[in-house]
């Protein structure tokens, strides 16, 4: 399970890094190169986003990548094949990130059975809260895949207690209101939020949304187990290419 991996890794380094990428962006071949480059740069986990036409939790950078891959004709089958390939080739855990309709249309049981066959270890699906996700969680768990849930600064104390009862692997803590890609203030407020998360769960904490520099990762040391870098890597990919993404991840260490 992911939790064991994370605690084990934490003994080697004081904060882990999870990279995010959109499968098939800018093309299948290039996204394979991208995985190779990012893994070589020393990241500890990786999210593979299966594109969706209505990604409501994503900001403009990831949204555009979703649209580009879909208009290039990328299918969900291609994403499973891609996952199979990278999990065979690389020795870090890979997770699927997508939206619930992709899981629902394939069928929860089939989605997770195929994800297991493809070597996937976890699933981050931002629009399936536990209330709606009883069969979703059961299908994931039955296939040995960790359903990752989200904690947000807007969640009430009661909500933290409730959410703390679910999930496995780790919790994905969103640093602020809004969608992916905007700027985050690494402030006292964020500190307090992470302290609330810590109280709600024994699971490791991943902090995402707006993490883009070494200074920000410094800030998170000792407060979260994992820093998630998504939109920033995509911005660098768009402006300077795959090699520069490798440099970005090396510079974060």
């Amino acid at each position, binding site marked *: 399970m992911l939790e064991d991996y994370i605690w084990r890794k934490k003994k080697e380094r004081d904060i882990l890094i999870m990279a995010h990428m959109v499968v098939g962006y800018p093309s299948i071949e290039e996204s394979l190169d991208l995985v190779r480059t990012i893994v070589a740069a020393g990241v500890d986990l990786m999210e593979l986003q299966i594109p*969706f*036409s*209505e990604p409501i939790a994503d900001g403009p950078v990831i949204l555009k990548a979703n649209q580009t891959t879909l208009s290039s004709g990328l299918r969900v089958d291609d994403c499973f094949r891609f996952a199979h390939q990278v999990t065979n080739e690389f020795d870090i855990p890979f997770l699927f990130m997508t939206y619930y309709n992709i899981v*629902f249309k394939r069928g929860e049981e089939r989605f997770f059975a195929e994800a297991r066959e493809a070597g996937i270890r976890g699933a981050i699906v931002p*629009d399936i*809260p536990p209330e709606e996700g009883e069969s979703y969680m059961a299908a994931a768990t039955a296939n040995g895949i960790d359903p990752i849930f*989200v904690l*947000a600064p*807007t*969640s009430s104390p009661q909500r933290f207690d409730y959410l703390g009862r679910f999930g496995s692997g780790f919790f994905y803590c969103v640093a602020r209101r809004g969608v992916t890609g905007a700027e985050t203030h690494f402030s006292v407020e964020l500190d307090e939020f992470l302290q609330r998360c810590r109280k709600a769960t024994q699971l490791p904490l991943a902090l995402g949304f707006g993490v883009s520099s070494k200074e920000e990762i410094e800030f998170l040391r000792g407060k979260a187990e994992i820093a998630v870098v998504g939109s920033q890597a995509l911005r660098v990919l768009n402006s300077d290419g795959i090699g520069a993404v490798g440099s970005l991840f090396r510079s974060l260490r």
Partner: protein
Amino acid sequence: MDKSGYYGQFGGAFIPETLNATLWQLNTAFAEVKEDSSFWTEYETLMSTYSCRPTPLTYAENLSSHFGGPRFYIKREDLNHTGAHKLNNVMGQGLLVQRMGKNRVIAETGAGQHGVATATMAAKLGYSCTIYMGEVDVARQRPNVFWMQQLGATVVPVKDGARILKDAINEALRDWSTNMDTTHYVLGTACGPHPYPEMVSYFQSIIGMEARNQILSQAGRLPKRIYACVGGGSNALGVFSGFLEDSSVELVGVEAGGEGLETNKHASRLAYGHGSVGVAQGYKTYFLQDEDGQMLETHSVAAGLDYIGVSPILAAYHEEKKIRFEAATDKEVLEATRLVMRMEGIIPALESAHALAGAFREAPQMNADDVIVINLSGRGDKDIFTIADALGDATWKSFIATKAEEYSA
């Protein structure tokens, strides 16, 4: 686990965690006003003094004799303030915003009617206002963009996705999850996460309450059928809600048939059998989507019906066969528009003309003394460019050309 807001297998609240708190707040505020009878009185007073409620029910005598029956009665939501049923929902939500103590409202709009209604409410009740509208719709509904801006709203053209209504909803959800502390999202139709389907239908039920009383007093009996156009479904749910307990009344929802079933260029989720169950934009219903669950491009001459999903409440009634769904093509809709303008002196919105087209198609099979009600959800002034193009009106074209020369001079 608590699953609320379900209609059969449809509905629910599939939303990112960040929005949970604000939806909770909205649920609580809405639950309070439903229990508070003074709220509905306040709402009705506002609608009768600021808007034109009750809107009339018009006996369309010329249409009735043109078809040799049935007897057509038209519920005149086109005479509601801002020219459509949209304001019913918007003013209701506006009063809720006061109770929640927020100072900014946002909305999506397709045809622009919901955007104009929201901008109007924001001006009247003193909120700042941002409207999201697909770039394609901005171009085809330009007069409404102008009015939203004059009313003080910021109109943001959405350039992502198909650049139509669904994309405007996505963008509004993103804004809301960023600014939820100060901002209420005035969703314009009976879709989206719970409590929106229920809440929007609740405010629109004023149409059905009035229509039932009016038809009983004017025709002396209940209608045989009621026709309403269905995009998201709020005007249909509004008028149908008054007759749900009347088993003798057949309820007919008319979707956008676009260029027809075989072309795949349409927005009919139910009537053409092309929709399948899915989850997007916060709720579960029938969507026009591919095998992978990616949403398809839709098409309709009417921007307000050009949408991938349908109210979960209507999806449930569809499965229970409580409502029959049909689709009218763009061509039928333009013919119906022309007919009702010439015969009754009423200019319908292209959206609403779908309901007319559905009724006209079935009129020959009805008896002369059958009574039917058509919900005319809005007026057609906004469609002047689209209708003029469809009719190929030469004098209009030369007017626009002259006007363009003036501006470029």
